[in-house]
């Protein structure tokens, strides 16, 4: 089932990348959504039309949008099902917090600390992606999904026993036990399952939006490059790709590592947006949530994933008025949207409706309507 899904979308996506105009259209829409979203939200915040509740979600929205874009690189463009995206996010988040805590002792320019922390997060997350990617990218389909799932859990459990703190000389020390040698309990900065506390909030909406733009830039350009086409051709037909001399592992690893690095950066932004961060945040549910964004937006459809991520992040908050029925309503909305997005009848209806507004130019094919419905 899943493979068929990938194949269907795959052939379409590849065509899209080969044609320059399709690429320009995708980039135009994606950047457009980001820009318009940013301006509208910023205006709303300035004029006071948007309350604290939504304003407080600006950064998480950008983070989840970035995560959806980066996961789309693995799931949509490289065609591998990954269930460990939250693991990379965790690596990035805790690296970022650690780096920020260290830098804070000698620097006071928060934006600069934020940038350095994000770069460090990208580095460690890509190393994690590389280490995990080498052995597992030989696996396919469900097997890869299971291993990435396990990876996410391993990262979380590792964080659960990881302790960092400064000793009396200001030297950073770590341990896998709650007592770190030479470190007073109050000088610990990352404490196992409790996670990090007392984090300085450095993330801002502008910074997060810039990060999303950067993520978009990397993914779209990779998709439209020679390497991107190689990645997609391997997705569509591995044997054909190998027969023309493409190194399958290299290209799969490339997509995986880039995606991991971008997830790490988003994780860092997320970590530096709250005063406390516990490893339990990065459990299986978060990985699945990001995958839901991607699937709901249409696998391989970058801007679809962006909209899905933004809407689904805001939705649980918007449903607070339902009080006790909030979670129930959320689930129902999710199911209805899923059914509507993938239901051929509804897709056809929406397609007809949309076609009405299109210029006479010859109809641009059947498979398209999924995007509009998203």
């Amino acid at each position, binding site marked *: 089932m899943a493979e068929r899904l990938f194949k269907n979308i795959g052939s379409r996506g590849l065509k899209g990348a080969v044609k320059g105009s399709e690429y320009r259209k995708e980039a135009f829409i994606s950047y457009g959504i980001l820009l*318009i979203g940013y301006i509208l939200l910023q205006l709303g915040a300035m004029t006071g039309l*948007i309350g604290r509740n*939504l304003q407080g979600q600006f950064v998480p929205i950008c983070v989840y949008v970035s995560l959806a874009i980066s996961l789309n690189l693995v799931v949509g463009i490289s065609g591998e099902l990954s269930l460990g995206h939250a693991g990379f996010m965790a690596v990035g988040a805790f690296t970022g917090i650690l780096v920020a805590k260290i830098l804070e002792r000698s620097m006071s320019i928060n934006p600069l600390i934020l940038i350095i922390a994000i770069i460090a997060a990208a580095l460690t997350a890509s190393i994690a992606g590389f280490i995990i990617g080498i052995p597992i990218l030989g696996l396919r389909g469900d097997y890869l999904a299971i291993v990435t799932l396990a990876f996410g859990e391993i990262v979380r459990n590792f964080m659960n026993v990881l302790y960092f703190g400064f000793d009396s000389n200001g030297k950073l020390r770590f341990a896998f*036990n709650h007592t770190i040698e030479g470190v007073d309990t109050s000088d610990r900065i990352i404490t196992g399952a409790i*996670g990090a506390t007392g984090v300085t909030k450095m993330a801002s909406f502008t910074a997060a939006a810039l990060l999303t733009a950067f993520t978009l830039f990397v993914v779209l350009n990779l998709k439209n490059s020679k390497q991107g086409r190689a990645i997609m051709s391997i997705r569509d037909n591995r044997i054909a790709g190998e027969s023309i001399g493409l190194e399958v592992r290299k290209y799969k690893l490339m997509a995986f590592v880039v995606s991991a690095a971008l997830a790490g950066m988003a994780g860092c932004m997320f970590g530096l947006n709250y*005063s406390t961060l516990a490893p339990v945040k990065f459990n299986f549910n978060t990985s699945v949530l990001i995958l839901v964004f991607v699937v709901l937006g249409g696998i391989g459809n970058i801007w679809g994933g962006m909209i899905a991520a933004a809407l689904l992040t805001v939705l649980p908050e*918007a449903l607070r*008025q339902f009080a006790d029925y*909030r979670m129930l309503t959320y689930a129902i909305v999710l199911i209805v949207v899923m059914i509507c997005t993938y239901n051929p009848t509804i897709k056809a209806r929406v397609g007809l409706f949309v076609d009405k507004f*299109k210029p006479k130019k010859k109809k641009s094919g059947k498979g398209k309507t999924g995007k509009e419905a998203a």
Partner: protein
Amino acid sequence: MKKNWTKFLVVALSVMMVFAMTACGGGSSDGGDDAAEGGAGVLHLGGTGPLTGPAALYGNAVKNGAELAVNEINAANPDGLQLSWDMQDDEHDAEKAVNAYNKLVDDGMQVLIGSVTTAPCTAVAAEAYANRTFVLTPSASGPAVTDGNDNVFQLCFSDPNQGIASAEYIKNNYADKTVGVIYNNADNYSSGIFDKFKSEYESDGKQLAAVEAFSDDANADFTAQLNSMKNAGVDLIFLPIYYTPASNIMTQAAKMGYAPTYFGVDGMDGILDLEGFDTNLAEGVLLLTPFTPYSEDAKVQEFVKAYEDAYGETPIQFAADAYDCVYTIYDAFQKTGLGADASMDEICEALIGVFTGGDFTSSGLTAESMSWNAAGEVDKTPKVCVIEDGKYVEK
């Protein structure tokens, strides 16, 4: 190029939908004040806690306990200051808790009672500190909650203070016992209590006869730890742990024919309801808990009855904590002399003044004459219960 416009329309509509939904959320809440408009106005209390998910038991207890207190106060004095109470779900998640807090601020909350659990409360406390909201948490006991936040106060004992209170109680009442400790060194709650217990207990020359640790992955077999206790001649074991591993310890000790006195903290609360555990083994267990529904205290009896009538279940400690929080805030607010129309930050500064003023005390279900220090920690007499005939009996 025109084709893109349709897509933009879709996008624009989506964005507008988000706006519309949030606008709805903001608008409808204005009608949410269920308290009748009294002469002295309405003070809006808000809370965040896990109403769904694995920790929902705690959040719902706080929600109900506070609701009960609010209804009592409103009914007792319809012409005086009225309270309103809005509890938002945070799913025991820091991110959701901040969202819930922001939503409450949007809706005009003036004082926050919460969050219920430590990690969300730590995140909310930082936001509330920057935004100047007064916070009184019924149950978030971690030290990170109050650390550096002058606006955050705890109604429960903080973890370190539980250790100190336990050590003092044991020293005063069981001076002749040989004391040992088994604790979970992978758990901050447990190790936080233990650290302070040890330093307090050993502060005047006494020594712990034996200290043994375990971790979450090895919490089934305690033979080694128990043998160590037995060999050291320990006849009182302090267990700053949750009730599940504690039940294993009791079962295995009984098998070994070893029968020390056990002393637990609030994590032990719940051991009598554990399935598959022979509650006879828990007979004589001492535990430090602020509240027991079996207390003979008239106030507690009244509360338990009202709670059972309203919600059909026996209240747990969290409900009592929340109940006390509401009364404490109510009393403290009267002292500030502010009107109910005062802004959130005015109330915050005034309440901080009252709480740290030195002469403010509050009595409730969980303790008599509680007072607070500037760090936000509560000072109250710990209550120790002993399990007799399958019930908690106050010592």
